[in-house]
């Protein structure tokens, strides 16, 4: 089973809940919050490996290139411009490879364009792996890194995926790749608004899900609104002093995970 922890709004406790879920399940876990990965800080772990993540872009052989411009014509992102010179902006390249195919003179050869890296950790408590994606600062190709991580872990039968905040394209890609989603929210107007948006994405992705209302005792009124509005089972988690060490919180996460498996069955 592949399971995502998601939720829409940032700061509602997704990663804390993901850390509990990891410790309860002991599954390989992937931190897909590639611009601000931090699940490794929530779990006691040691880094074991690091690998670069690259796209394949073009490198030009100036002796063969006649500046015919075929590669620029097929370059959808505008990374390759050809006029008086052959010019690549590596930051705009999406690695589609069309330019390499289009060149009539074999003047282009594949080259690596780095967009980030993957750090692999071993979690001491569970012995399981944590993979953490890390996009290079300022790079705009977060979706490519998320996809790389999803492809890279495709063969694992049991996987826990911590998504970034929001309801954007990366979250959608993750939801399309999982069997079920644990949706974390809070009883606040902003969290409910983001939750609505996320649930629309979840419906498009057709993923079984349950909702965990974190810090439900913040507001009975807004907790009830969330419960009324979502059409799936919900769980209430209380505010606690030490969220990562709390047995009470862990028990709620366990119940929600059991409920999620029933929903997905």
């Amino acid at each position, binding site marked *: 089973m592949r399971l995502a922890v998601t939720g829409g709004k940032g700061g509602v406790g997704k990663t804390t809940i993901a850390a509990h879920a990891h410790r309860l399940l002991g599954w390989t876990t992937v931190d897909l919050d590639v611009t601000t990965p931090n699940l490794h800080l929530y779990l006691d772990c040691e880094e074991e490996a690091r690998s670069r993540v690259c796209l394949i872009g073009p490198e030009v052989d100036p002796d063969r290139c006649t500046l015919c411009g075929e590669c620029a014509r097929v370059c959808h992102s*505008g990374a390759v411009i050809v*006029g*008086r*010179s052959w*010019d690549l*902006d590596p930051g705009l390249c999406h690695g589609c490879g069309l330019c390499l195919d289009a060149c009539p003179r074999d003047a282009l050869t594949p080259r690596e364009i780095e967009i980030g890296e993957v750090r692999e950790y071993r979690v001491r408590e569970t012995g399981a792996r944590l993979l953490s994606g890390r996009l290079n600062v300022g790079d705009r190709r977060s979706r490519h890194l998320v996809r790389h991580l999803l492809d890279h872990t495709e063969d694992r039968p049991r996987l826990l995926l911590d998504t970034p905040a929001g309801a954007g394209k990366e979250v959608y890609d993750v939801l399309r790749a999982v069997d079920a989603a644990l949706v974390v929210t809070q009883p606040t107007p902003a969290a409910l608004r983001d939750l609505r948006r996320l649930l629309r994405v979840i419906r498009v992705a057709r993923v079984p899900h349950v909702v965990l209302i974190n810090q439900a005792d913040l507001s009975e009124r807004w907790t009830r609104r969330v419960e009324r509005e979502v059409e799936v089972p919900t769980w209430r988690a209380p505010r606690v002093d030490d969220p990562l060490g709390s047995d009470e919180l862990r028990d709620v996460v366990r119940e929600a995970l059991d409920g999620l498996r029933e929903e997905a069955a």
Partner: protein
Amino acid sequence: MRVAVMVEGDGVSARFARAPEIRVYEVEGDEVELVESRENPAAGLPRGAGRQIVGVLAQLDVDATVAGRYGPNALQGLKAQGIKAYIAEPGTDPEEAALKAARGELPEG
């Protein structure tokens, strides 16, 4: 010298890549001749206009361009193509802007 002036309305456009019109002038001494006027194919692009317009200007084989301001992607691309990027006050008469650009009397972006 061939100069592409980015035009909006009747004057130099404040924007480079998304200006609606491109006018190409041939400048020799004091002679300024309009050789081509065309719609800017990059004007309506959702993204990446700054790069695409450089490709268009490279095809037009111009030596310089004039606009009110330039984006970073555009500037980098123009530099790689050896096209000088001149800045003129938005609304300036395009012909006058082309002449000043050819004489190097405008500031560069």
